[in-house]
Protein backbone atom coordinates (compact mmCIF):
# COMPACT_ATOMS: atom_id res chain seq x y z
CA UNK A 1 0.00 0.00 0.00
CA UNK A 2 1.42 3.39 -0.95
CA UNK A 3 1.57 5.74 1.91
CA UNK A 4 2.69 9.25 2.65
CA UNK A 5 5.46 9.81 5.16
CA UNK A 6 4.66 12.92 7.14
CA UNK A 7 7.59 15.11 8.05
CA UNK A 8 7.75 17.60 10.83
CA UNK A 9 10.52 20.10 11.40
CA UNK A 10 8.64 22.46 13.67
CA UNK A 11 10.07 23.06 17.10
CA UNK A 12 8.05 21.63 19.94
CA UNK A 13 6.18 18.98 18.00
CA UNK A 14 8.68 16.20 18.43
CA UNK A 15 10.39 17.88 21.37
CA UNK A 16 13.50 15.72 21.80
CA UNK A 17 13.99 16.59 25.46
CA UNK A 18 10.53 15.55 26.60
CA UNK A 19 10.62 12.47 24.38
CA UNK A 20 14.01 11.52 25.84
CA UNK A 21 12.53 11.87 29.34
CA UNK A 22 9.55 9.76 28.33
CA UNK A 23 11.77 7.00 26.96
CA UNK A 24 13.80 6.97 30.19
CA UNK A 25 10.54 6.60 32.12
CA UNK A 26 9.45 3.79 29.81
CA UNK A 27 12.73 1.99 30.46
CA UNK A 28 12.12 2.10 34.22
CA UNK A 29 8.64 0.65 33.63
CA UNK A 30 10.13 -1.97 31.34
CA UNK A 31 12.66 -3.04 33.97
CA UNK A 32 9.91 -3.32 36.58
CA UNK A 33 8.22 -5.96 34.44
CA UNK A 34 11.46 -7.54 33.18
CA UNK A 35 12.44 -8.34 36.78
CA UNK A 36 9.04 -9.97 37.34
CA UNK A 37 9.40 -11.96 34.11
CA UNK A 38 12.82 -13.13 35.35
CA UNK A 39 11.21 -14.27 38.60
CA UNK A 40 8.53 -16.07 36.57
CA UNK A 41 11.13 -17.82 34.38
CA UNK A 42 13.23 -18.87 37.39
CA UNK A 43 10.27 -20.49 39.11
CA UNK A 44 9.06 -21.98 35.84
CA UNK A 45 12.43 -23.71 35.48
CA UNK A 46 12.03 -25.10 39.00
CA UNK A 47 8.36 -26.12 38.70
CA UNK A 48 7.64 -26.87 35.01
CA UNK A 49 4.79 -29.33 35.78
CA UNK A 50 3.03 -27.04 38.25
CA UNK A 51 3.29 -24.07 35.88
CA UNK A 52 1.93 -26.18 33.01
CA UNK A 53 -1.08 -27.40 35.01
CA UNK A 54 -1.85 -23.91 36.28
CA UNK A 55 -1.48 -22.37 32.82
CA UNK A 56 -3.99 -24.66 31.09
CA UNK A 57 -6.62 -23.64 33.68
CA UNK A 58 -6.43 -20.00 32.55
CA UNK A 59 -9.03 -18.69 30.13
CA UNK A 60 -7.14 -18.46 26.84
CA UNK A 61 -10.17 -17.17 24.91
CA UNK A 62 -10.54 -14.05 27.06
CA UNK A 63 -6.77 -13.50 26.97
CA UNK A 64 -6.70 -13.76 23.15
CA UNK A 65 -9.65 -11.37 22.89
CA UNK A 66 -7.85 -8.98 25.26
CA UNK A 67 -4.75 -9.13 23.06
CA UNK A 68 -6.88 -8.13 20.05
CA UNK A 69 -8.40 -5.31 22.11
CA UNK A 70 -5.06 -3.86 23.24
CA UNK A 71 -3.47 -4.19 19.78
CA UNK A 72 -6.44 -2.37 18.28
CA UNK A 73 -6.23 0.34 20.93
CA UNK A 74 -2.53 0.78 20.08
CA UNK A 75 -3.50 1.15 16.43
CA UNK A 76 -6.15 3.74 17.38
CA UNK A 77 -3.74 5.85 19.42
CA UNK A 78 -1.19 5.68 16.58
CA UNK A 79 -3.92 6.94 14.24
CA UNK A 80 -4.56 9.84 16.63
CA UNK A 81 -0.94 10.97 16.16
CA UNK A 82 -1.20 10.89 12.37
CA UNK A 83 -4.52 12.73 12.57
CA UNK A 84 -3.22 15.52 14.82
CA UNK A 85 -0.20 15.96 12.55
CA UNK A 86 -2.52 16.35 9.59
CA UNK A 87 -4.69 18.74 11.55
CA UNK A 88 -7.67 16.35 11.59
CA UNK A 89 -8.95 17.26 15.04
CA UNK A 90 -12.18 15.27 14.80
CA UNK A 91 -10.33 12.07 13.77
CA UNK A 92 -7.88 12.62 16.65
CA UNK A 93 -10.72 12.93 19.14
CA UNK A 94 -12.51 9.81 17.85
CA UNK A 95 -9.27 7.81 17.76
CA UNK A 96 -8.64 8.74 21.40
CA UNK A 97 -12.22 7.89 22.40
CA UNK A 98 -11.85 4.46 20.73
CA UNK A 99 -8.51 3.92 22.50
CA UNK A 100 -9.96 4.78 25.90
CA UNK A 101 -13.07 2.65 25.30
CA UNK A 102 -10.92 -0.34 24.32
CA UNK A 103 -8.77 0.19 27.41
CA UNK A 104 -11.90 0.08 29.59
CA UNK A 105 -13.13 -3.01 27.71
CA UNK A 106 -9.79 -4.69 28.38
CA UNK A 107 -10.21 -4.05 32.12
CA UNK A 108 -13.79 -5.36 32.09
CA UNK A 109 -12.68 -8.56 30.34
CA UNK A 110 -9.80 -8.93 32.78
CA UNK A 111 -12.31 -8.49 35.60
CA UNK A 112 -14.44 -11.34 34.19
CA UNK A 113 -11.36 -13.54 33.97
CA UNK A 114 -10.33 -12.77 37.56
CA UNK A 115 -13.89 -13.33 38.80
CA UNK A 116 -13.95 -16.75 37.15
CA UNK A 117 -10.74 -17.72 38.95
CA UNK A 118 -11.85 -16.25 42.28
CA UNK A 119 -15.17 -18.15 42.07
CA UNK A 120 -13.11 -21.34 41.69
CA UNK A 121 -11.25 -20.44 44.88
CA UNK A 122 -8.07 -19.47 43.06
CA UNK A 123 -6.75 -16.23 44.52
CA UNK A 124 -3.91 -15.29 46.86
CA UNK A 125 -4.45 -16.51 50.46
CA UNK A 126 -7.42 -18.70 49.35
CA UNK A 127 -7.81 -21.99 51.20
CA UNK A 128 -8.37 -23.79 47.88
CA UNK A 129 -4.82 -22.95 46.83
CA UNK A 130 -3.32 -24.99 49.68
CA UNK A 131 -4.57 -28.15 47.95
CA UNK A 132 -2.54 -27.32 44.87
CA UNK A 133 1.17 -27.86 44.45
CA UNK A 134 3.86 -25.29 45.19
CA UNK A 135 4.42 -24.61 41.48
CA UNK A 136 0.74 -23.83 40.91
CA UNK A 137 0.67 -21.58 43.98
CA UNK A 138 3.66 -19.63 42.67
CA UNK A 139 2.15 -19.45 39.19
CA UNK A 140 -1.14 -17.98 40.41
CA UNK A 141 0.67 -15.62 42.79
CA UNK A 142 2.70 -14.25 39.90
CA UNK A 143 -0.37 -14.27 37.66
CA UNK A 144 -2.30 -11.97 40.01
CA UNK A 145 0.75 -9.80 40.74
CA UNK A 146 1.79 -9.27 37.14
CA UNK A 147 -1.63 -8.99 35.50
CA UNK A 148 -2.77 -6.78 38.40
CA UNK A 149 0.24 -4.50 38.04
CA UNK A 150 -0.37 -4.39 34.30
CA UNK A 151 -4.04 -3.51 34.90
CA UNK A 152 -2.90 -0.59 37.09
CA UNK A 153 -0.76 0.60 34.18
CA UNK A 154 -3.77 0.31 31.86
CA UNK A 155 -5.78 2.48 34.29
CA UNK A 156 -2.90 4.99 34.37
CA UNK A 157 -2.82 5.01 30.56
CA UNK A 158 -6.58 5.55 30.33
CA UNK A 159 -6.37 8.54 32.70
CA UNK A 160 -3.45 9.96 30.71
CA UNK A 161 -5.28 9.55 27.38
CA UNK A 162 -8.44 11.06 28.85
CA UNK A 163 -6.42 14.16 29.84
CA UNK A 164 -5.03 14.24 26.27
CA UNK A 165 -8.57 13.99 24.91
CA UNK A 166 -9.54 17.05 26.96
CA UNK A 167 -6.40 18.87 25.80
CA UNK A 168 -7.18 18.12 22.15
CA UNK A 169 -10.74 19.30 22.77
CA UNK A 170 -9.69 22.64 24.27
CA UNK A 171 -6.83 23.16 21.82
CA UNK A 172 -3.90 22.77 24.25
CA UNK A 173 -2.78 19.83 22.12
CA UNK A 174 -2.95 20.74 18.46
CA UNK A 175 -1.23 20.39 15.10
CA UNK A 176 1.43 22.83 16.27
CA UNK A 177 2.06 21.22 19.65
CA UNK A 178 1.37 17.54 20.19
CA UNK A 179 4.45 16.32 22.09
CA UNK A 180 2.33 15.42 25.14
CA UNK A 181 0.02 13.27 23.02
CA UNK A 182 2.99 11.55 21.38
CA UNK A 183 4.50 10.74 24.79
CA UNK A 184 1.17 9.45 26.13
CA UNK A 185 0.87 7.22 23.06
CA UNK A 186 4.38 5.86 23.71
CA UNK A 187 3.26 4.89 27.22
CA UNK A 188 0.15 3.16 25.85
CA UNK A 189 2.23 1.19 23.33
CA UNK A 190 4.55 0.00 26.11
CA UNK A 191 1.52 -1.20 28.09
CA UNK A 192 0.47 -3.09 24.96
CA UNK A 193 3.92 -4.65 24.49
CA UNK A 194 4.03 -5.79 28.13
CA UNK A 195 0.64 -7.47 27.66
CA UNK A 196 1.94 -9.32 24.57
CA UNK A 197 4.56 -10.98 26.80
CA UNK A 198 2.15 -11.61 29.68
CA UNK A 199 -0.13 -13.34 27.17
CA UNK A 200 2.74 -15.40 25.75
CA UNK A 201 4.24 -16.49 29.07
CA UNK A 202 1.10 -17.13 31.12
CA UNK A 203 -1.28 -18.47 28.48
CA UNK A 204 0.79 -19.94 25.66
CA UNK A 205 4.30 -21.04 26.59
CA UNK A 206 3.83 -22.45 30.08
Amino acid at each position, binding site marked *: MRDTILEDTEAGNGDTTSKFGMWLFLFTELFLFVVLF*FVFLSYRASYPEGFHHASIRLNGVIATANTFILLTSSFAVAISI*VAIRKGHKRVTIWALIVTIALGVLFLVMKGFEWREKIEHGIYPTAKGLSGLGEGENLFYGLYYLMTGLHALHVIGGIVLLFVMLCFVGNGRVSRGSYGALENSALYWHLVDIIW*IYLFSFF*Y*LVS
Partner: protein
Amino acid sequence: MANETHNKTPGYGTFLVVWGTVLVLTIAAAASGRLLNEGLWKSFPLFIALVKTVLIASFFMNLKYERGFFRVMVFVVLGVILILGLFLYTDVGYR
Protein backbone atom coordinates in the same frame (compact mmCIF):
# COMPACT_ATOMS: atom_id res chain seq x y z
CA MET B 1 16.62 26.18 17.79
CA ALA B 2 17.58 23.82 20.58
CA ASN B 3 14.43 21.75 20.49
CA GLU B 4 14.10 21.52 16.73
CA THR B 5 13.68 17.98 15.50
CA HIS B 6 13.51 16.31 12.15
CA ASN B 7 10.70 13.90 12.81
CA LYS B 8 8.72 11.68 10.42
CA THR B 9 5.77 9.41 10.86
CA PRO B 10 3.96 7.07 8.46
CA GLY B 11 0.39 7.70 7.33
CA TYR B 12 -2.89 5.87 8.00
CA GLY B 13 -2.24 3.13 5.41
CA THR B 14 1.03 1.91 6.94
CA PHE B 15 -0.55 1.69 10.40
CA LEU B 16 -3.49 -0.23 8.95
CA VAL B 17 -1.13 -2.83 7.43
CA VAL B 18 0.86 -3.12 10.69
CA TRP B 19 -2.37 -3.52 12.69
CA GLY B 20 -3.61 -6.28 10.38
CA THR B 21 -0.24 -8.03 10.58
CA VAL B 22 -0.09 -8.03 14.40
CA LEU B 23 -3.67 -9.35 14.58
CA VAL B 24 -2.83 -12.22 12.20
CA LEU B 25 0.32 -12.92 14.23
CA THR B 26 -1.80 -13.04 17.41
CA ILE B 27 -4.02 -15.72 15.86
CA ALA B 28 -0.89 -17.63 14.80
CA ALA B 29 0.53 -17.35 18.34
CA ALA B 30 -2.71 -18.51 19.98
CA ALA B 31 -2.97 -21.46 17.56
CA SER B 32 0.67 -22.47 17.93
CA GLY B 33 0.39 -22.25 21.73
CA ARG B 34 -2.33 -24.90 21.61
CA LEU B 35 -1.03 -27.07 18.76
CA LEU B 36 2.76 -26.97 18.89
CA ASN B 37 3.95 -28.37 22.20
CA GLU B 38 7.05 -30.26 21.17
CA GLY B 39 10.68 -29.19 21.62
CA LEU B 40 11.66 -25.80 20.29
CA TRP B 41 8.17 -25.27 18.83
CA LYS B 42 7.02 -24.57 22.40
CA SER B 43 8.88 -21.26 22.14
CA PHE B 44 7.24 -20.31 18.84
CA PRO B 45 4.68 -17.95 20.49
CA LEU B 46 7.61 -16.08 22.05
CA PHE B 47 9.18 -15.65 18.63
CA ILE B 48 5.88 -14.24 17.38
CA ALA B 49 5.74 -11.93 20.42
CA LEU B 50 9.18 -10.66 19.46
CA VAL B 51 8.09 -9.97 15.87
CA LYS B 52 5.00 -8.11 17.13
CA THR B 53 7.17 -6.06 19.49
CA VAL B 54 9.48 -5.07 16.63
CA LEU B 55 6.49 -4.01 14.51
CA ILE B 56 4.88 -1.99 17.31
CA ALA B 57 8.16 -0.35 18.34
CA SER B 58 9.18 0.41 14.73
CA PHE B 59 5.90 1.80 13.45
CA PHE B 60 3.45 2.62 16.25
CA MET B 61 6.22 3.93 18.52
CA ASN B 62 7.84 5.53 15.49
CA LEU B 63 11.36 4.18 16.17
CA LYS B 64 11.88 3.43 12.46
CA TYR B 65 11.55 7.13 11.64
CA GLU B 66 13.03 8.45 14.89
CA ARG B 67 16.50 9.89 15.35
CA GLY B 68 19.27 7.28 15.56
CA PHE B 69 19.93 8.38 19.14
CA PHE B 70 16.62 6.88 20.33
CA ARG B 71 17.25 3.61 18.50
CA VAL B 72 20.72 3.32 20.06
CA MET B 73 19.20 4.00 23.49
CA VAL B 74 16.65 1.20 22.99
CA PHE B 75 19.31 -1.24 21.78
CA VAL B 76 21.52 -0.47 24.81
CA VAL B 77 18.62 -1.16 27.19
CA LEU B 78 17.68 -4.36 25.35
CA GLY B 79 21.35 -5.39 25.48
CA VAL B 80 21.39 -4.89 29.27
CA ILE B 81 18.20 -6.99 29.59
CA LEU B 82 19.78 -9.71 27.42
CA ILE B 83 22.94 -9.77 29.57
CA LEU B 84 20.88 -9.93 32.77
CA GLY B 85 18.81 -12.73 31.21
CA LEU B 86 21.99 -14.67 30.35
CA PHE B 87 23.25 -14.29 33.95
CA LEU B 88 19.89 -15.53 35.21
CA TYR B 89 19.86 -18.45 32.76
CA THR B 90 23.40 -19.45 33.79
CA ASP B 91 22.50 -19.21 37.47
CA VAL B 92 19.25 -21.18 37.21
CA GLY B 93 20.60 -23.68 34.66
CA TYR B 94 23.64 -24.72 36.71
CA ARG B 95 22.07 -24.87 40.16
